[in-house]
C-alpha cells in the first residue's frame, strides 16, 4: 500500500495530489452563491444584514478549512471519522426528537435544533454523510464475500434503519427521499443484478400509491397536488408560480429593472430563482455546468477507485448521489419539473451549518480523490 495522508504530505507535495477538477467547480458555485445571497439579503432583512452574509461567508471559509483537513486524513482515520459522524448524527436525531426547542411552528417540521453560535441545525444533514461512509464498508465487506447477501442485507438494514426511522418520524420527507436515493445508487454501483433493478423499479411504481394513502401527510400531499395541478391551491401554488416568474424575469443577463419578484424563502430553498434574477441565463448556465461537471467528475473518480478501493468508490457514489439528488430536486422544483420539498441548494443556499456539512462531504470526497490520484501515479 502506498503512503497516504500525512505521510504522503511529507514525501510529496500534497496539494499536487488534490483533485482540482472537483474543488474548483464547487468553490466557484459557492462564490456565485455568496454574490447572489448578498444581493438577496441586502434588502428586506433589516438589521440582520449584513451580519447574515458575513456569517455565510464565514461558513464557507470554515467549511473549506474543514474540507482540507479532512482530505489530509489517512484511510483508517477516515473510517473512524465515518463511524463518529454516524454515531453523533444518531444521537442528535434522538435529541431533536425530545428537545424542548422546536421550530415546527415556524417551519412546519420538527427537524431542527438550536446550537450556540452556529444557530439552527438539521442533524439529518449530517446523518447522510455518516450513512454513506459507514454503509460503504458493509458493501465492501459483501464485495469481499465476508457476508452473503442476506447477512449483508441485515447489516445494511441495521445501519440504515435507526437514522431513517428517526428522520421519518420528524417527519422529513425530503431527507428520507435523499437517503433512499443514496442507498439505491450505492446498491446500483455495488453491482446489483439488472433483474433486481427492474424488480425494484416495479416495486416503486406500486409503492407510490401505497405511500400516498398510508405514509404521506396532508401537507406533503398538498405539495404534490399543487405540483401536478398548479392553481389548485392558490397558497401553495404561489411559491411555484412566483419561482417561475422570478426565473423568467432574469432574461439573458439578469433582471435590471429593480423590481424583484417576491418568492418565499428566496434566500434558501428558492435561491436558484435569485441566481436567475440577478445573473440571468449566463449565471444559471454557469451554475449548472459547474455543479453537474462536479458530479460527473466525482463519479469518474469513483469509477477509477472501484478496482483498488471499493469502499472508497461506494462512499464516493453515496456522497455524490446525495449531492446530486439535492441539486436535481432543488433545481427541478424551482423550474417546476419536480414537486416542492424543503431541500436547499448545496453550497449556495443560506444556512451556515448546511454549508459546513456539505463541505465535510466535500472533504471526504477530496480525501478519496487524493487517494485515487496517488494510486494512479503508481
Amino acid at each position, binding site marked *: 500500500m502506498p503512503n497516504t495522508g500525512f505521510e504522503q504530505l511529507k514525501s510529496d507535495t500534497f496539494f499536487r495530489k488534490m483533485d482540482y477538477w472537483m474543488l474548483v467547480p464547487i468553490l466557484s458555485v459557492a462564490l456565485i452563491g455568496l454574490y447572489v445571497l448578498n444581493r438577496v439579503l441586502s434588502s*428586506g432583512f433589516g438589521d440582520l444584514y449584513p451580519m447574515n452574509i458575513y456569517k455565510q461567508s464565514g461558513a464557507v471559509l470554515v467549511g473549506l478549512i474543514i474540507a482540507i483537513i479532512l482530505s489530509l486524513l489517512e484511510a483508517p482515520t477516515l473510517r473512524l471519522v465515518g463511524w463518529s459522524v454516524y454515531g453523533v448524527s444518531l444521537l442528535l436525531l434522538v435529541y431533536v426528537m425530545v428537545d424542548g426547542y422546536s421550530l415546527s411552528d415556524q417551519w412546519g417540521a420538527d427537524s431542527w435544533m438550536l446550537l450556540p453560535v452556529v444557530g439552527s441545525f438539521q442533524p439529518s444533514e449530517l446523518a447522510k454523510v455518516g450513512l454513506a461512509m459507514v454503509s460503504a464498508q458493509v458493501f465492501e465487506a459483501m464485495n469481499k464475500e465476508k457476508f452473503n447477501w442476506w447477512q449483508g442485507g441485515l447489516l445494511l438494514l441495521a445501519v440504515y434503519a435507526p437514522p431513517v426511522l428517526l428522520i421519518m418520524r420528524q417527519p422529513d420527507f425530503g431527507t428520507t427521499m435523499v437517503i433512499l436515493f443514496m442507498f439505491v445508487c450505492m446498491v446500483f454501483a455495488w453491482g446489483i443484478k439488472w433483474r433486481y433493478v427492474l424488480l425494484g423499479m416495479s416495486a416503486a411504481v406500486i409503492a407510490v400509491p401505497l405511500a400516498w394513502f398510508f405514509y404521506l401527510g396532508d401537507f406533503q400531499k398538498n405539495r404534490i397536488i399543487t405540483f401536478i395541478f398548479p*392553481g389548485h391551491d392558490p397558497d401553495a401554488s404561489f411559491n411555484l408560480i412566483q419561482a417561475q*416568474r422570478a426565473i423568467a424575469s432574469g432574461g439573458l443577463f439578469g*433582471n435590471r429593472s429593480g423590481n424583484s419578484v417576491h418568492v418565499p424563502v428566496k434566500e434558501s430553498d428558492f435561491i436558484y430563482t435569485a441566481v436567475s434574477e440577478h445573473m440571468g441565463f449566463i449565471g444559471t448556465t454557469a451554475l449548472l455546468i459547474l455543479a453537474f461537471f462536479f458530479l*460527473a467528475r466525482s463519479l469518474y473518480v469513483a469509477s477509477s477507485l472501484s478496482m483498488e478501493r471499493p469502499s472508497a468508490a461506494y462512499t464516493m457514489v453515496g456522497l455524490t448521489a446525495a449531492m446530486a439528488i439535492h441539486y436535481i430536486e432543488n433545481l427541478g422544483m424551482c423550474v417546476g419539473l419536480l414537486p416542492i420539498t424543503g431541500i436547499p441548494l448545496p453550497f449556495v443556499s443560506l444556512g451556515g451549518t448546511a454549508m459546513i456539512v456539505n463541505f465535510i462531504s466535500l472533504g471526504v470526497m477530496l480525501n478519496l480523490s487524493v487517494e485515487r490520484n496517488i494510486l494512479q501515479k503508481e
Partner: protein
Amino acid sequence: MAQDLKKTYYIFDHDEAQPLEMSEEKRPGIKHRVSSFLRSRFAIMSIAFSIAGIMIFYRTAALQLDPGAVSGVSESSGISRQQVIQAPRGDIYDASGVALAYSESIPVLFLSYAGLDDESLNTMLLDLALTLESYGVEIDSELLDYFELDHTSCDHDPGEGQDCGIAVFKKNIEEVKYWQSNQNLFALKEIEKSTKSDFADDYVKTDPEEFYKYLLYSKYKIENYESDGLRYSREDALRIMKLRYLIMKNNWSFINGTPVEIARNLPDELISLINEQNFRFMGTIIDYDSQRAYSDQVRYLSHVIGYIGRISSSQYEQLRELGYEPDAMIGQAGVESSAERYLSGQNGVKPYNIWSVSAENGVFFPQSTGKDAVPGNDIQLTIELPLQKLAQTSLEQVIEQIRNSPDNKNKGDADAGSVVVLNAKTGAVLAMASYPYYDPNDFLIQSYDEEAAKRVSQYLQDNDQKPMMNRAIMEIYAPGSTFKPVTAVAALESGAITPTSSVIRCRGSEVIGDWPWRCLEYPVGGHGDLTLTRGMATSCNMYFYHLGVKTGVDNIDYWGRKLGLGELTGIDLPGEVKGYRSSRDTKILLRSNPADQIWFPADTCQTAIGQFDNSFTVLQLARYTAAVATGNLVTPHVVSQVIRHDGVVIEYNNPEPQPIGMEQTTLDAVREAMVAVSRDNEGTARKYFSDYPIDVAAKTGTAETGKEDVSSSNGLFICYAPADDPEIVIAQIIEKGAWGSNTIGIAKNILDAWFGFDSDGSPSDLVSEPAVSGLGSDTSENEETEPN
C-alpha cells in the same frame, strides 16, 4: 491483494457481461470503448444525472428566453402588463465639466388594477395608507381640498381622533356643487330647490355629513348600510376615501391597466417592504421616474440653461410624431429647449407584474421583451462657469451702484442689463448674463413648494422687468457710440477717408446734412482737427456726422450687414431677435406714412453715431466687435459638444468663422482708434484702462432712448483684448445706466479674471472701486437727441 480485488470486482460488477467484454477486448476500437463505457455503472449514473441537468437547463433557459412558450405560467393568477420607462434626460455641463443640470431617479408608488372587489380593495388601501403614513409618506389627494373631517371640536388630540371628526367642506358651497357635479368625478345631479338630498340618491349633497355617508355607503362601499355596526373608524374611512378618490380620478385608464400614481419619494425600507409583500398590497408597483435637477449654480446662467416644463398643447401637436407623450416634460427655454432633441432620450417599455386575486390570463413579459430606455445625450456648454458667475454678479452689483449714485443725467433708475463674453476667434460664448433673472429650480419644485410657485408666477407675469427674457438675444437696443467703429470701417473701406488722411475739423457748432449740430464737449470752438483715432477716443459726434455724410448711408448699411448687425447671429438658443439696421429700406419698413419714409441727410448723421433706427441685440454687438477684432464673422454658440450617454462625443459644434473681406489697413486703423479709447488722455475708457497691463480695444456708448425726460439713457460698452491678438470680446448694456462708461467695471472684472490680473484683490472690490469713481464724472461722450 490488488489482484484479488480486481477479480472480486469483476465478479460482482460485471458478472453477466463478463464473457462479452472478454471477447470484445480482442477487438479494441471506438465501438469497444463506447460500449465498455456504457457498461460501467458509474457512467450510467453520470449519464442519468446529466440528463436531469440538461432538462433543468432547458427548462430554465425556456423560462428566461421565451417564457411565453411555457405553459403554466400564463395560467397564473398574477397579472403582467407593460409600462413605460422614462428615459433620463441628458446632463448639461459647463466648459470645464461642472454639472449644471442632471437627472435624478425618484421612486414612485403606483397602483394598478388587480381585479379586487370593493371590500378587499378598501381593506388593502387602508393597509397601504397606514403603511405609507408609518413611513411618513404623504398621499396628496385632491379630495382633502374639498372635504375633510374636522377635529377642532373634539376633546382630545387630533392625532388620536377616531370617531368624533365632523364632516366639513373646505370650499364655498358653489365650488363644492360644481365639483360634485363634475361628470368625470361624482357626476351628481344638480338638486331642485325644494327637495333635500340624502346619501342614497344621486343628487348633489350640500350637507357634508350626507356627502360623507354617500362616499361611505354608496360611492366607495366602504361600509354596508344594512349591516349592524361599522368596520372602520371615521378616520380610517377617510384614509380609504383619499385613495379611492385618486383612483376614481383616473378610473378609465386605471381599469385599462395604466397604473395610477399614489406617492413619490418613498424611503428605501418602504420600497423593499412593498416589493417583498406585493401579495399583501395587491396591484402596487414601485417604479423609478427620472426627474430633472439643477445645481445651485444654475441661477447664474438661467437664461442659457432655460428650464423644463409640461409640454403645451401646441408643442404636443408638433412633437407627437417624435413619440412625445401628452404629459411629457420638455425644454421650454435656453439650451433645454434648443437642444431638446439631443437631451431627451427614448422611453423604454418594461413589463411589470402584480399579484392579483383573479385568474385572469396575464401575458408574462420577460425582461427580453421590454425595451430599455435610451438615456438622452449630454450637452457640454462653452460657458465658463466662473466667468459666467462673475459676469452675472458684477452686472448685478454695477446696476446697484448706478442706482445708488444718481446725478443730473443719471436718474438712479438702472434696473436691467446684459453682458456677453465671446471667444474672439471661435465665437464660443464664454459668458452670457442677463438681469433680472429667474431661478430654474423654482420651475422644478413649484408643484410642491408654494414659495417657488409664487416666484414662478411672478417671473411669468412681470411685464415690467421681464425676468424671463434673455436680454442678450431677445431685446434690441440702440447701440449709440458703440456703433462708431462700423461707421469707421465703412468710411475706410469705401475710401471716404484713409488711415493716413482721416482729419476732419470739429467746429463745435455746425450745419451738417442740412441740420444744425453742436459738439457736446466743446460747443464753442470745438475739438479742432481730429484724426479718426482722436475722433474715436473722444467719441466726438461732429467728427462722425461728417464721416457719415462723407461715407453715405448705403455704405454704412452695407458694412453694418457684413459685420452681422441687424442679422440673426444663428446662436443655438431659442428666441433670438433680428433687430434693425438704420437704412433707407428700414425707414420705409418701419413707417407707414409716405411722408415719413423719405430719407434725409440728417438721418445719415444720426445713423453714423448709432442712433435713428439702429437697434441690435447685445450678442450682435459682441459678434461685430469680434469681427472688427479678427476680420472674421463668427457664429456665436453655447453648445460645444454633444456626448452620448456612454461617453462618445457624437457632435462637435465648431462653426467655421467666415472672412468678411476687410482690408488689413482698415482693421489696423480701427484697432488703433479703439485702443486710443482706453489709452489716450482723452479716451472715454481711460479711467479703467490707461495703465492696464495689456492693450484693450474698446468703445463706450450712451444710447438715447427718446424717453430722456423720464428715464436715463442706456449705457453700453464693447471691447476686445488683447488688442494685438484678440482672445475675448465683451459687449454689455445696462438699461438706464446713464453713461456707457458707468458699465465698464463689469468688463474690467471679466478681463481681470480672464487674464489673471487680480492686483485689486477680490472680485467685488474690483467692481466697486472703479465703477463708483467713474460714475457721472465722464462727460466727454454725449449724444444729441434725435432731431425729429
